[in-house]
Protein backbone atom coordinates (compact mmCIF):
# COMPACT_ATOMS: atom_id res chain seq x y z
CA UNK A 1 0.00 0.00 0.00
CA UNK A 2 2.79 2.42 -0.82
CA UNK A 3 0.91 5.59 -1.66
CA UNK A 4 -0.46 4.78 -5.09
CA UNK A 5 -3.87 5.55 -6.50
CA UNK A 6 -5.77 3.57 -9.10
CA UNK A 7 -7.25 5.72 -11.82
CA UNK A 8 -8.63 5.23 -15.30
CA UNK A 9 -8.09 7.28 -18.40
CA UNK A 10 -10.82 7.20 -21.02
CA UNK A 11 -10.92 8.37 -24.59
CA UNK A 12 -14.08 7.40 -26.39
CA UNK A 13 -15.08 7.50 -30.02
CA UNK A 14 -18.27 5.86 -31.26
CA UNK A 15 -16.27 3.05 -32.88
CA UNK A 16 -13.76 2.46 -30.15
CA UNK A 17 -13.66 3.35 -26.50
CA UNK A 18 -10.39 3.07 -24.69
CA UNK A 19 -10.42 2.66 -20.95
CA UNK A 20 -6.94 2.40 -19.53
CA UNK A 21 -6.38 1.53 -15.89
CA UNK A 22 -3.32 3.00 -14.23
CA UNK A 23 -1.63 2.88 -10.89
CA UNK A 24 -0.01 6.20 -10.15
CA UNK A 25 1.77 7.77 -7.20
CA UNK A 26 -0.46 9.79 -4.94
CA UNK A 27 -0.75 13.44 -5.92
CA UNK A 28 -0.53 12.76 -9.64
CA UNK A 29 -2.43 15.15 -11.86
CA UNK A 30 -4.88 14.53 -14.65
CA UNK A 31 -2.24 15.57 -17.17
CA UNK A 32 0.27 13.08 -15.82
CA UNK A 33 -2.33 10.32 -15.96
CA UNK A 34 -3.00 11.05 -19.63
CA UNK A 35 0.72 11.13 -20.28
CA UNK A 36 1.12 7.75 -18.59
CA UNK A 37 -1.84 6.21 -20.40
CA UNK A 38 -0.12 6.44 -23.76
CA UNK A 39 -3.38 7.53 -25.40
CA UNK A 40 -1.76 10.59 -26.96
CA UNK A 41 0.60 8.43 -28.97
CA UNK A 42 -2.19 6.10 -30.07
CA UNK A 43 -4.62 8.84 -31.07
CA UNK A 44 -2.86 11.59 -32.90
CA UNK A 45 -6.16 13.49 -33.22
CA UNK A 46 -6.09 14.35 -29.52
CA UNK A 47 -4.84 17.86 -29.01
CA UNK A 48 -4.77 18.73 -25.34
CA UNK A 49 -5.06 22.39 -26.23
CA UNK A 50 -8.41 21.66 -27.88
CA UNK A 51 -9.77 18.49 -26.29
CA UNK A 52 -11.03 19.30 -22.84
CA UNK A 53 -10.45 17.08 -19.85
CA UNK A 54 -12.62 16.08 -17.00
CA UNK A 55 -13.06 13.72 -14.11
CA UNK A 56 -16.34 11.82 -14.07
CA UNK A 57 -18.32 14.22 -16.26
CA UNK A 58 -16.99 17.35 -14.54
CA UNK A 59 -14.56 19.49 -16.53
CA UNK A 60 -11.13 19.67 -14.95
CA UNK A 61 -7.75 21.17 -15.73
CA UNK A 62 -4.67 19.12 -16.54
CA UNK A 63 -3.07 20.16 -13.25
CA UNK A 64 -5.97 18.89 -11.15
CA UNK A 65 -4.71 16.43 -8.55
CA UNK A 66 -6.35 13.02 -8.81
CA UNK A 67 -7.94 10.99 -6.10
CA UNK A 68 -8.11 7.23 -5.85
CA UNK A 69 -10.53 5.66 -8.36
CA UNK A 70 -10.96 8.82 -10.40
CA UNK A 71 -11.71 8.46 -14.09
CA UNK A 72 -9.92 11.00 -16.24
CA UNK A 73 -11.89 11.62 -19.39
CA UNK A 74 -10.64 13.16 -22.61
CA UNK A 75 -13.57 14.78 -24.39
CA UNK A 76 -14.27 15.56 -28.00
CA UNK A 77 -16.04 18.72 -29.12
CA UNK A 78 -19.72 18.67 -30.06
CA UNK A 79 -20.62 18.39 -33.71
CA UNK A 80 -24.07 19.89 -33.41
CA UNK A 81 -24.69 23.41 -32.23
CA UNK A 82 -27.02 23.09 -29.25
CA UNK A 83 -28.86 26.29 -30.16
CA UNK A 84 -29.44 25.09 -33.70
CA UNK A 85 -30.67 21.68 -32.61
CA UNK A 86 -33.13 23.28 -30.23
CA UNK A 87 -34.34 25.71 -32.87
CA UNK A 88 -34.85 22.89 -35.33
CA UNK A 89 -36.77 20.82 -32.86
CA UNK A 90 -38.94 23.78 -31.97
CA UNK A 91 -39.63 24.40 -35.66
CA UNK A 92 -40.59 20.77 -36.15
CA UNK A 93 -42.97 21.13 -33.26
CA UNK A 94 -41.26 18.49 -31.16
CA UNK A 95 -41.48 19.09 -27.46
CA UNK A 96 -38.23 19.55 -25.65
CA UNK A 97 -37.89 17.63 -22.47
CA UNK A 98 -36.06 18.50 -19.30
CA UNK A 99 -32.84 20.42 -19.86
CA UNK A 100 -34.28 22.68 -22.53
CA UNK A 101 -35.46 25.50 -20.34
CA UNK A 102 -39.14 24.98 -20.98
CA UNK A 103 -40.75 22.00 -19.31
CA UNK A 104 -42.62 19.23 -21.03
Amino acid at each position, binding site marked *: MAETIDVEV*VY*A*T*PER*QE*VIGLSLPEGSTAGQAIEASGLLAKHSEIDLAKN*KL*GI*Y*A*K*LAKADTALRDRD*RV*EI*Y*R*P*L*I*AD*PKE*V*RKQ*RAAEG*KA*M*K*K*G*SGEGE
Partner: protein
Amino acid sequence: MLEAILVMAFGALVLGAALGYAAVRFRVEGDPLVEKIDAILPQTQCGQCGFPGCKPYAQAIAKGEADINCCPPGGEEGIHKLADLLGREFKSLSAEHGVEKPKAVAVIDEQVCIGCTLCIQACPVDAIVGAAKQMHTVVSAQCTGCELCVAPCPVDCIHMEPIEETVDTWKWKYPVVPIRQVA
Protein backbone atom coordinates in the same frame (compact mmCIF):
# COMPACT_ATOMS: atom_id res chain seq x y z
CA MET B 1 -32.62 -35.21 42.15
CA LEU B 2 -30.34 -32.27 42.82
CA GLU B 3 -27.52 -34.07 41.03
CA ALA B 4 -29.61 -34.51 37.91
CA ILE B 5 -30.50 -30.80 37.82
CA LEU B 6 -26.85 -29.85 38.28
CA VAL B 7 -25.71 -32.16 35.50
CA MET B 8 -28.32 -30.77 33.12
CA ALA B 9 -27.48 -27.19 34.08
CA PHE B 10 -23.78 -27.83 33.59
CA GLY B 11 -24.47 -29.39 30.20
CA ALA B 12 -26.57 -26.39 29.18
CA LEU B 13 -23.82 -23.99 30.21
CA VAL B 14 -21.06 -25.84 28.34
CA LEU B 15 -23.11 -26.21 25.15
CA GLY B 16 -24.30 -22.61 25.35
CA ALA B 17 -20.74 -21.36 25.67
CA ALA B 18 -19.63 -23.55 22.76
CA LEU B 19 -22.46 -22.25 20.55
CA GLY B 20 -21.78 -18.66 21.56
CA TYR B 21 -18.10 -19.05 20.73
CA ALA B 22 -18.86 -20.70 17.38
CA ALA B 23 -21.24 -17.86 16.46
CA VAL B 24 -18.45 -15.33 16.95
CA ARG B 25 -15.63 -17.45 15.52
CA PHE B 26 -17.41 -18.62 12.38
CA ARG B 27 -19.43 -15.48 11.73
CA VAL B 28 -20.51 -15.21 8.07
CA GLU B 29 -20.05 -11.77 6.55
CA GLY B 30 -23.04 -10.70 4.51
CA ASP B 31 -25.73 -13.04 3.31
CA PRO B 32 -24.33 -15.79 1.07
CA LEU B 33 -27.77 -16.35 -0.45
CA VAL B 34 -27.99 -12.70 -1.53
CA GLU B 35 -24.58 -13.03 -3.19
CA LYS B 36 -25.69 -16.14 -5.08
CA ILE B 37 -28.90 -14.52 -6.27
CA ASP B 38 -27.03 -11.36 -7.24
CA ALA B 39 -24.62 -13.46 -9.29
CA ILE B 40 -27.54 -14.79 -11.35
CA LEU B 41 -29.11 -11.38 -11.93
CA PRO B 42 -27.89 -9.64 -15.10
CA GLN B 43 -26.42 -6.57 -13.34
CA THR B 44 -28.08 -4.20 -15.76
CA GLN B 45 -29.12 -2.03 -12.78
CA CYS B 46 -32.15 -1.05 -14.86
CA GLY B 47 -34.66 -0.97 -12.04
CA GLN B 48 -37.40 -2.66 -14.06
CA CYS B 49 -38.04 -5.01 -11.14
CA GLY B 50 -39.09 -2.04 -9.05
CA PHE B 51 -35.96 -2.08 -6.92
CA PRO B 52 -33.11 0.44 -7.28
CA GLY B 53 -30.70 -2.16 -8.65
CA CYS B 54 -29.84 -5.82 -8.91
CA LYS B 55 -28.46 -6.14 -5.37
CA PRO B 56 -31.55 -4.67 -3.68
CA TYR B 57 -33.70 -7.02 -5.77
CA ALA B 58 -31.50 -9.94 -4.71
CA GLN B 59 -31.95 -8.94 -1.07
CA ALA B 60 -35.70 -8.74 -1.54
CA ILE B 61 -35.80 -12.19 -3.14
CA ALA B 62 -33.71 -13.64 -0.34
CA LYS B 63 -36.08 -12.17 2.24
CA GLY B 64 -39.05 -13.52 0.33
CA GLU B 65 -40.44 -10.04 -0.32
CA ALA B 66 -40.12 -10.23 -4.09
CA ASP B 67 -41.00 -12.85 -6.64
CA ILE B 68 -38.36 -14.38 -8.89
CA ASN B 69 -40.06 -13.40 -12.14
CA CYS B 70 -39.63 -9.60 -12.06
CA CYS B 71 -36.40 -9.31 -14.07
CA PRO B 72 -36.97 -8.80 -17.82
CA PRO B 73 -33.27 -8.58 -18.81
CA GLY B 74 -32.58 -11.86 -17.01
CA GLY B 75 -35.41 -13.43 -18.97
CA GLU B 76 -36.75 -16.96 -18.71
CA GLU B 77 -33.21 -18.22 -18.34
CA GLY B 78 -32.64 -16.12 -15.24
CA ILE B 79 -35.92 -17.23 -13.73
CA HIS B 80 -35.00 -20.89 -14.34
CA LYS B 81 -31.68 -20.39 -12.56
CA LEU B 82 -33.30 -18.57 -9.65
CA ALA B 83 -35.96 -21.27 -9.36
CA ASP B 84 -33.21 -23.91 -9.26
CA LEU B 85 -31.21 -22.04 -6.63
CA LEU B 86 -34.14 -21.31 -4.37
CA GLY B 87 -36.04 -24.53 -4.93
CA ARG B 88 -39.08 -22.60 -6.08
CA GLU B 89 -41.43 -23.34 -8.91
CA PHE B 90 -40.61 -21.75 -12.30
CA LYS B 91 -43.07 -19.11 -13.40
CA SER B 92 -43.03 -17.05 -16.55
CA LEU B 93 -41.89 -13.44 -16.57
CA SER B 94 -44.43 -11.10 -15.00
CA ALA B 95 -45.81 -8.84 -17.70
CA GLU B 96 -46.05 -5.73 -15.52
CA HIS B 97 -42.27 -5.51 -15.24
CA GLY B 98 -41.62 -5.56 -18.96
CA VAL B 99 -40.70 -7.95 -21.71
CA GLU B 100 -37.48 -9.76 -22.47
CA LYS B 101 -35.54 -8.08 -25.26
CA PRO B 102 -32.35 -9.03 -27.05
CA LYS B 103 -29.24 -7.61 -25.43
CA ALA B 104 -28.48 -4.13 -26.67
CA VAL B 105 -26.20 -1.20 -26.00
CA ALA B 106 -26.97 2.49 -26.17
CA VAL B 107 -25.57 4.47 -29.07
CA ILE B 108 -25.47 8.26 -29.21
CA ASP B 109 -26.09 10.10 -32.48
CA GLU B 110 -23.16 12.50 -32.54
CA GLN B 111 -24.79 14.76 -35.10
CA VAL B 112 -27.54 15.60 -32.64
CA CYS B 113 -25.98 15.36 -29.15
CA ILE B 114 -25.95 18.78 -27.45
CA GLY B 115 -23.81 17.79 -24.48
CA CYS B 116 -26.45 18.27 -21.81
CA THR B 117 -25.15 15.53 -19.43
CA LEU B 118 -28.68 14.29 -18.62
CA CYS B 119 -27.89 10.79 -19.92
CA ILE B 120 -24.70 10.71 -17.87
CA GLN B 121 -26.65 11.43 -14.73
CA ALA B 122 -29.14 8.71 -15.60
CA CYS B 123 -26.53 6.03 -16.31
CA PRO B 124 -26.34 3.65 -13.33
CA VAL B 125 -22.94 2.26 -14.30
CA ASP B 126 -21.05 5.39 -15.46
CA ALA B 127 -20.80 4.00 -18.98
CA ILE B 128 -21.19 7.40 -20.66
CA VAL B 129 -18.17 9.62 -21.07
CA GLY B 130 -18.77 13.33 -21.48
CA ALA B 131 -19.25 16.65 -19.75
CA ALA B 132 -21.28 19.81 -20.22
CA LYS B 133 -21.05 20.95 -23.86
CA GLN B 134 -18.67 18.11 -24.73
CA MET B 135 -19.48 15.13 -26.90
CA HIS B 136 -21.03 12.26 -24.98
CA THR B 137 -19.98 8.75 -25.87
CA VAL B 138 -21.18 5.39 -24.60
CA VAL B 139 -18.47 2.97 -23.54
CA SER B 140 -20.05 -0.13 -25.10
CA ALA B 141 -18.11 -2.56 -22.94
CA GLN B 142 -19.61 -1.01 -19.81
CA CYS B 143 -23.12 -0.38 -21.12
CA THR B 144 -25.61 -2.83 -19.62
CA GLY B 145 -28.40 -1.94 -22.04
CA CYS B 146 -30.69 -0.71 -19.27
CA GLU B 147 -32.23 2.01 -21.48
CA LEU B 148 -32.33 4.48 -18.58
CA CYS B 149 -30.46 7.07 -20.66
CA VAL B 150 -32.91 7.00 -23.57
CA ALA B 151 -35.80 8.84 -21.94
CA PRO B 152 -33.91 11.78 -20.37
CA CYS B 153 -32.27 12.89 -23.65
CA PRO B 154 -33.90 16.20 -24.64
CA VAL B 155 -33.04 15.71 -28.31
CA ASP B 156 -33.77 11.97 -28.59
CA CYS B 157 -30.28 11.22 -29.83
CA ILE B 158 -29.84 7.89 -28.02
CA HIS B 159 -31.07 4.64 -29.46
CA MET B 160 -30.49 1.02 -28.51
CA GLU B 161 -28.58 -1.22 -30.87
CA PRO B 162 -28.96 -4.97 -30.39
CA ILE B 163 -25.69 -6.81 -29.89
CA GLU B 164 -25.07 -9.29 -32.65
CA GLU B 165 -24.22 -12.80 -31.63
CA THR B 166 -20.53 -13.26 -32.33
CA VAL B 167 -17.91 -15.62 -31.01
CA ASP B 168 -17.18 -13.06 -28.28
CA THR B 169 -20.74 -12.44 -27.19
CA TRP B 170 -22.14 -15.94 -27.52
CA LYS B 171 -23.25 -17.48 -24.28
CA TRP B 172 -24.12 -21.02 -23.35
CA LYS B 173 -27.88 -21.15 -23.04
CA TYR B 174 -29.46 -22.50 -19.90
CA PRO B 175 -30.36 -26.08 -20.70
CA VAL B 176 -34.10 -26.47 -20.57
CA VAL B 177 -34.85 -30.15 -20.87
CA PRO B 178 -38.52 -31.05 -20.73
CA ILE B 179 -39.38 -33.75 -18.27
CA ARG B 180 -40.94 -36.79 -19.92
CA GLN B 181 -42.79 -39.64 -18.43
CA VAL B 182 -40.71 -42.77 -18.72
CA ALA B 183 -42.70 -45.93 -18.84
